C-alpha cells in the first residue's frame, strides 16, 4: 500500500494524546525503576566493600595504662605481620570518647571505666579470622577481632531485594504499557471496523492492516516515551542528590550526577516502548482480524 494515504484514517482513530501520555507516564516510571536498580546495585557494591573490609580489634584494658600500651603495640605488631591486614591504626582517646559519647555522655573519662583500646584496619584476607584471633589472643589475652562480614551479608540481602523490587516494577511497567497500547489499538479497531472490513474485502493482507496500526502505535509510543524519559531525568538527578550521603558523596560539596549505566539505559526506554507498541499492536490487530472471514 502506498504510504502517503492514510487508508484507515488512523490519524484520527488512534488516540494521539492519550496513548503518548500514558506511555510517557510508564516511561517516566521505567526510568525511575532503572535508576533504582542501578543505584541499588552500585550501593550494594560500595557498602559491601566498605563494611566487609573493615576489621575492628578490641584490646581489653590492663591494670596499668603502660601495660595496655605494650599490649596494643604487641597487637599492632601481630596485625602488621599478618598478610591481608593493612592500615592498622589505634584509635586516639578523643576518637574513642567520640564513639562512646552516645552511650556514656561527654565526660566518659571521668567515670574511670576500663575502656578497651580499639584498633581499626582493613581486612582483605580470604577465609575466617580464626588464625588471626588466636595470634592476637596470644599477644594480648582477651583481644577480640571482628570484620563487617555479617553486616555486609545483610546489606547484600537488602540491596538484592531493592534490585529485585525495581526489576519487578520495570516488568509491571512494561506490561501496563503493553495493556495501554492494546486498549488503544482495540479502540482504533472498533472505530475503524467498517473501513477495515472494506479493505479486507478488497484483498488487503493481515500484514497490510496490522502494519498500518503498528506504525501509528509505535510512533505514538515512542513520542510518549521520549517525553516521559526526558521528564524523569531531572527527577532522577534530584533523587541522586538526596541519596548522595548514602553513596559517600557530600551533598554540599559535590553533585553525584547520573551513573554511566543510566545514561546508556535512557535511550533504550523509547526504543523499548516502540518495540512494545509494535509487537502489542501486531498481536492485537492480527488476533482481531482472525474474526473476519
Amino acid at each position, binding site marked *: *500500500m*502506498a504510504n502517503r*494515504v*492514510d*487508508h484507515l*484514517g488512523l490519524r*484520527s482513530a488512534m488516540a494521539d494524546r492519550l496513548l503518548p501520555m500514558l506511555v510517557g507516564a510508564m516511561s517516566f516510571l521505567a526510568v525511575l525503576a532503572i535508576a533504582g536498580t542501578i543505584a541499588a546495585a552500585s550501593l550494594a557494591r560500595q557498602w559491601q566493600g566498605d563494611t566487609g573490609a573493615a576489621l575492628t580489634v578490641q584490646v581489653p584494658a590492663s591494670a596499668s595504662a603502660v601495660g595496655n600500651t605494650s599490649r596494643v603495640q604487641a597487637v599492632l605488631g601481630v596485625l602488621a605481620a599478618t598478610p591481608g591486614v593493612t592500615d592498622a591504626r589505634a584509635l586516639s582517646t578523643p576518637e574513642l570518647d567520640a564513639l562512646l559519647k552516645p552511650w556514656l555522655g561527654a565526660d566518659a573519662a571521668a567515670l574511670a571505666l576500663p575502656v578497651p583500646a580499639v584498633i581499626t584496619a582493613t581486612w582483605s584476607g580470604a577465609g575466617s579470622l580464626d588464625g588471626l584471633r588466636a595470634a592476637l589472643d596470644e599477644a594480648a589475652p582477651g583481644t577480640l577481632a571482628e570484620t563487617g562480614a555479617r553486616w555486609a551479608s545483610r546489606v547484600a540481602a537488602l540491596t538484592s531485594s531493592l534490585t529485585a523490587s525495581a526489576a519487578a516494577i520495570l516488568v509491571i511497567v512494561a506490561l501496563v504499557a503493553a495493556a495501554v497500547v492494546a486498549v488503544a489499538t482495540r479502540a482504533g479497531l472498533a472505530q475503524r471496523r*467498517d*473501513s477495515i472490513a*472494506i*479493505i*479486507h*474485502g*478488497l*484483498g*488487503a*493482507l*493481515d500484514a*497490510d492492516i496490522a502494519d498500518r496500526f503498528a506504525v501509528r502505535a509505535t510512533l505514538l509510543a515512542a513520542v510518549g516515551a521520549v517525553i516521559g524519559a526526558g521528564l524523569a531525568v531531572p527527577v532522577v538527578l534530584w533523587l541522586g542528590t538526596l541519596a548522595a550521603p548514602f553513596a559517600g558523596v557530600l551533598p554540599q560539596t559535590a553533585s553525584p550526577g547520573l551513573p554511566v549505566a543510566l545514561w546508556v539505559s535512557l535511550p533504550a526506554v523509547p526504543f523499548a516502548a516502540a518495540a512494545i507498541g509494535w509487537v502489542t499492536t501486531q498481536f492485537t490487530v492480527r488476533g482481531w*482480524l*482472525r474474526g473476519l*472471514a
Partner: protein
Amino acid sequence: MVRFENVWLKYRRAGEATLAAAPNVISDISFEIPDGGFRWLTGASGAGKTSLLKLMYLAEHPSRGRIDIMGTQAVRLNRRDMALLRRRIGVVYQDFRLLGHLSAYDNVALPMRLARKTEGQVKADVTELMRWVGLVDKMQRRPAELSGGEQQRIAIARAVVGRPKLLVADEPTGNLDDDQAERLMLLITALNRLGTTVVIATHNLHLVERYPAPCMEIAAGRLVAHG
C-alpha cells in the same frame, strides 16, 4: 470458473449456542459458471441473493459444501492466499461501502494500491475510469459530498479498476438513472467480453430483458431456476 457444490450457509445469531441451531440462509445450492460467463441473480428481498454473493466474493465461509473460485477451493486457502484471491474479485456492494475519509480518487485507487501498483499506473487507470463514470471533475470530493448515484458510480469504478477475473455486483443500478445504468452495463459487458466472469444480483427485470443472459433465481435460500 465459479463452482458451488452442495453449499449451505448459516449465520450464528446472538444467544444461539451453536451454529447447528441457526436457520439455513443458503440451502444445498450447486451451480457452475464458466470463465467469462455472465449470470443474472434474481429473487425476492430476503431470498438469499446477498448471502450467495457474499459466498462468491469470499466474505463468508459456507457451513457445508465446496466452493471453487477460479479453479481454487476457497475454504482450503490460508489467510494470505484468500486475500490474494479476493484481489481478483471485483465487488459492487448494495450499500457502496466507500471509505468516508478518503476522496473519490483514493477510494477507486484502493485496489490498485493494495496490489502495489506504481502511483503512475494508479493515476492513469483511476483517471481513465473516473472519466468513464463521468466523475473526473469530482475526484477529490469525499463520498459524503456526492449524490447516491455518484457514490454508486465510484463503487463501480473501484470494483472494476483492478480488471477483476470475477465481478460480483449487488443491485449495481439501484441508484442510477436509465442513462447511467445503460452506461454501466456497457462497461460491464465490455469487461465480460474481455473475459471477466460477471454475476449481477438485481430486481430490475427490464435490465435483465435488455441484456439477455442466463438467470439464476433464488427463493428461500434455494436455487429454483438456473438457465
